[in-house]
């Protein structure tokens, strides 16, 4: 196992470096003179010079890169143009909100996908299986930026059960954003559980268990489901990463004060250090989650480690 972890960690190094380079180059991709663009049209030359200096744009490129990586290693992500405070402070304040939303959506997805997936695997090709199939189809085609507003119309405006936006009302505020973001995931999971469990139910060991007198429900839940969950767990962990990017849109719909909303707000105000830092944190979390899900896969399915 240790060897497997080390190998995966080593594989992460070039990828992380690649992403750091990508984010570093972003500011140099700004068309024209980045300093002029950031200071704004019609800014005084000394303001432009200030921006250039504060961002280190007057230094040679390699030096900028080394400084950037060096600062990152010390946890210094830069200062916001707008507030002049450390960008990491703003990120630390927003991170929990995004995580809460991601976990909320995952919970929604599990609550929907488990019963639906299991029932449609047991009653294959029945009406309920068809309903689940239709639901999965709608779920993956429905854009969250449409589903969210529909939920707001139905449950926050027509029936005032939940707040329209914000995070002030605690768990009540979490419900609609979580459902919005959890829909696509629950659709994917439902299909996954159905296929995986249906596969296991056709295996001989299930027939053997039933032949030996085990009740059908015990054969399903004690024997087949356990094995069927292996691929499901991996998908679930992998999808957690995509929830982070989904949060960018969902947070915008519900004015949810998380990282995604911070990113879009900083883009609008051209606060480039904040933009870079937000992207970096989302990307690194994404890589980390994928790494952990790989490890998890290795743990639940020992065959993987050999590959």
């Amino acid at each position, binding site marked *: 196992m240790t060897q497997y972890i080390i190998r995966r960690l080593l594989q992460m190094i*070039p*990828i992380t470096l*690649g*992403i750091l380079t*990508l*984010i570093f180059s*972003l*500011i140099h*991709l*700004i*068309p024209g003179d980045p300093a002029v663009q950031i200071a704004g049209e019609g800014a005084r030359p000394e303001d432009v010079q200030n921006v250039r200096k504060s961002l280190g744009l007057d230094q040679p490129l390699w030096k900028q890169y080394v400084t950037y990586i060096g600062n990152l290693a010390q946890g210094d992500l830069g200062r916001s143009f707008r507030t002049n405070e450390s960008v990491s402070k703003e990120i630390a304040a927003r991170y929990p909100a995004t995580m809460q939303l991601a976990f909320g959506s995952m919970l929604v997805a599990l609550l929907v996908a488990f019963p639906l997936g299991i029932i449609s695997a047991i009653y294959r090709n029945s009406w309920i299986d068809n309903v689940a199939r239709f639901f999965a*189809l709608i779920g*993956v*085609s*429905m*854009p969250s*930026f*449409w589903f969210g*507003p*529909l939920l*707001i*119309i139905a449950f926050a*405006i027509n029936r005032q059960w939940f707040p*329209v936006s914000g995070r002030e009302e605690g768990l009540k505020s979490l419900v609609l954003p979580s459902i919005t973001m959890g829909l696509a995931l629950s659709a994917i999971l439902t299909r996954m559980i159905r296929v995986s469990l249906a596969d296991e139910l056709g295996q001989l060991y299930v027939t053997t268990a039933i032949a030996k007198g085990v009740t059908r429900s015990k054969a399903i839940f004690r024997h087949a489901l356990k094995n069927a969950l292996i691929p499901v767990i991996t998908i679930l962990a992998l999808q957690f*990463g*995509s929830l*982070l*990017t989904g949060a*960018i*849109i969902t947070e*915008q*719909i519900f004015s949810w004060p998380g990282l995604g909303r911070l*990113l*879009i707000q900083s*883009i*609008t105000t051209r606060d*480039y250090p904040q*933009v870079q830092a937000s*992207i970096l944190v*989302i*990307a690194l979390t*994404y*890589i980390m989650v*994928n790494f952990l899900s790989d490890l998890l896969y290795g743990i639940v399915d020992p065959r993987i480690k050999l590959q």
Partner: protein
Amino acid sequence: MKTFGRLIRNFAFMLGLVLTLLLIISALAAPLLSPHDPFHQDTSRRLEAPSDDHPLGLDDLGRDVLSRIFYGARVSLRVGFSVVFLASLIGITLGAIAGYFGGFVDMLVMRLCDILLSFPGILLAIALVAVLGPSLNNVVMALVITAWVGYARLVRGQVLKVREMEFITAARALGARSPRVIILHVLPNIMNPVIVMATLGLGGVILSEAALSFLGLGVQPPTPSWGAMLTSGRRYLGLANHLAIFPGAAIMLAVMGLNFLGDGLIDALDPKFRKEMR
């Protein structure tokens, strides 16, 4: 003929085909279909609910929503086709070169793919549009940069298989040079999965364009784009729900249609591709 028969009997494929044709017709015939000028503002009638004259109502500037949806299809399709065309061109070229020659080139292309894949696609697109500035061309570029990877990996995998076949050895033995072998012998044999990927990819691109526009990073006003229409509609939820409902429905039907079409193609062309597409 067998493939054609299978397609005709596939309900999802036919539904997808109808929805996709509707999308294409809306885009091409927008000026003929639109009951009103999509840019004409009548501020005295802003946010008006659907009526006989304006079947889908009027928006926050008093423009006809139905006409703007027809014209919005143009933006969606233009971005969709441009991205899929450019991404598949880049992806097929790099994937074929990587797969055919192997070695250092292969490693380089594949590592680049790994880096781009380890980064969530929409996040990279947002980052690029954020620094380049929002415009139709920049949206296309940002989406191409993330989309070519899928084609490159698919094509490389296919080329690796085809490369070892006897007709390739025969072509080489007859003196054909590498470019000729790749273009005339390898590529025609691996196009089916690429077509499927392109069809499915088109829906994904349309969705991404709508998402970027929704975030204010896409096509700029007054050009009608479904995503941007949804954003302004969101501000009037409760007051004028039709502004959010109809553009969203258009996006969903378009994406669903293309997904059905792609799914049907997978089953008809070769079911074993389903596994390879993942």
